[in-house]
């Protein structure tokens, strides 16, 4: 089965072509507008957030993907239907509907969050995650522990009550004058710092649930900076390292507790923040092997928003013939996972 997928839920415009028989997923094309260096296709403008930019980017991207104009080698079209920004979502959804209608191809509507979960199927490992699984989905907008009973059957067992982990990274970067979004820079500086230099709070760890809270940690960093203005670069690195340690500690500890309670066959780590090296290492060191669960990390290039993950998720809907009529599909900005 060859799947064309489209993802425009937020800042990125992305398409992919994925071929699979179910055991291995071959990403034939994976195009993300903001990553394309050849500005020529856009007349020099790098597409960004606005809907008209998604619109502007999509057709040149379909062009360079070399999909035949009649779509004859495509079997299924998958598109992100939500959650996300309504105006952005509509662009992808309407283009997917038009293609599905005129090519007469089955259309699958995919939940963006489900897409992130399925990004863990994209590793070139010959083993795929088996369910029941437990996924820590962690990004700029999400921090959730999802129990996956089987394909398409989810239970959100814990989530943030205020800020997402990625948001905390970006806001700490801003406080330290590292720009916005600067979460990645915080992580880089953390490598040069001492994670035990400052004792930042591990929010919600004392509570026996699977929820998170990062607003308090954000504020704790700000309060620390008010009392202890940064004087040296090493100082800054130590703050980054100590902050990162607090986030990673919290995420890992809660995930381990969830593994102990739910006994999943697989533990999955996905979402933009799952690219964080220290988090990946902590998962590898502390989680793989416990309770016979096997660990699957989303491959680095599929941690942030992309369309390949939408295609994988689309595949599992397609084999169940979970198709949707292109004439009636509408974007749903508030779509939830369950």
């Amino acid at each position, binding site marked *: 089965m060859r799947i064309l997928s489209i993802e425009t839920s937020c800042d990125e415009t992305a398409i992919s072509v994925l071929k699979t028989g179910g055991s291995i997923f071959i990403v034939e094309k994976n195009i993300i507008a903001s990553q394309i260096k050849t500005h020529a296709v856009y007349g020099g403008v790098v597409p*960004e*957030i*606005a*809907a008209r930019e998604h619109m502007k980017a999509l057709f040149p991207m379909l062009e360079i993907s070399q999909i035949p104009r009649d779509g004859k080698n495509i079997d299924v079209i998958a598109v992100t239907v939500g*959650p*996300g*920004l*309504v*105006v*952005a979502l509509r662009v992808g959804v309407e283009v997917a509907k038009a293609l599905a209608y005129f090519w007469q191809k089955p259309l699958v509507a995919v939940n963006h969050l489900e897409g992130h979960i399925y990004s863990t199927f994209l590793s070139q490992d010959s083993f795929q995650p088996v369910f029941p699984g437990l996924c820590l989905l962690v*990004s*700029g*907008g999400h921090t959730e522990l999802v129990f996956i009973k089987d394909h398409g059957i989810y239970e959100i067992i814990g*989530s*943030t*009550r*205020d*800020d*997402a982990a*990625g*948001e905390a990274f*970006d*806001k700490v970067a*801003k*406080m330290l004058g590292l720009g*916005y*979004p600067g979460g990645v820079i915080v992580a880089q500086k953390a490598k040069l710092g001492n994670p035990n230099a400052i004792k930042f709070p591990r929010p919600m760890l004392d509570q026996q649930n699977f929820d998170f809270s990062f*607003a308090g940690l*954000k*504020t704790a960093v*700000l*309060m620390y900076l008010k009392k202890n203005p940064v004087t040296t670069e090493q100082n800054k690195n130590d703050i980054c390292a100590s902050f990162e340690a607090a986030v990673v500690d919290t995420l890992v500890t809660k995930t381990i507790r969830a593994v102990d309670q739910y006994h999943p066959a697989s533990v999955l780590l996905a979402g933009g923040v799952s690219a964080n090296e220290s988090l990946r290492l902590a998962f590898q060191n502390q989680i793989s092997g416990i309770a016979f669960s096997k660990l699957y990390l989303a491959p680095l290039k599929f941690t942030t928003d992309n369309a390949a993950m939408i295609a994988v998720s689309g595949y599992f809907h397609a084999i169940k013939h979970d198709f949707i009529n292109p004439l009636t599909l509408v974007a749903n*900005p*508030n779509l939830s996972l369950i």
Partner: protein
Amino acid sequence: MFYLSHSSQETKKFAIEFALKLSMGTVVALEGDLGSGKTTFVQGLAEGFGIKDIVRSPSFTLMNIYPFQSVDSEKHYFVHVDAYRLDSAAKLEETGLDEWIGRKDAIIFIEWPERFELPIAFDWKIVFAYGDEEETREILIRHLLSHKDSYPT
């Protein structure tokens, strides 16, 4: 109106009471530095409106919508917007916010409106500031009488 809060619980309690003063169709601006308590206040407001969902920071998602039933069991919408990570007002269009403004069945709260001039007529402006202690916050509330003024007033 001025209120000095000594804890996040106090801020929420004050917001629950303040929610009674707000009518549908209004737009509220929430200004103040990182961590000054805007989202915490909005969590209290949502509770005041009887919303059971967890109200999370919309900084990344830009806009979160919570449907709820009013006392007369009409369907209403609590719209929570955050302009923090945007770098121009034009990008706010992506959220479809203009489809919500002016609706009589929606009430809209916008964090970080001061980031740029928004072509929006605010009914209320609430300013949050850090107090002297770690857990004190000063909350200043102003009813903006002229509906013609766009931001900043």
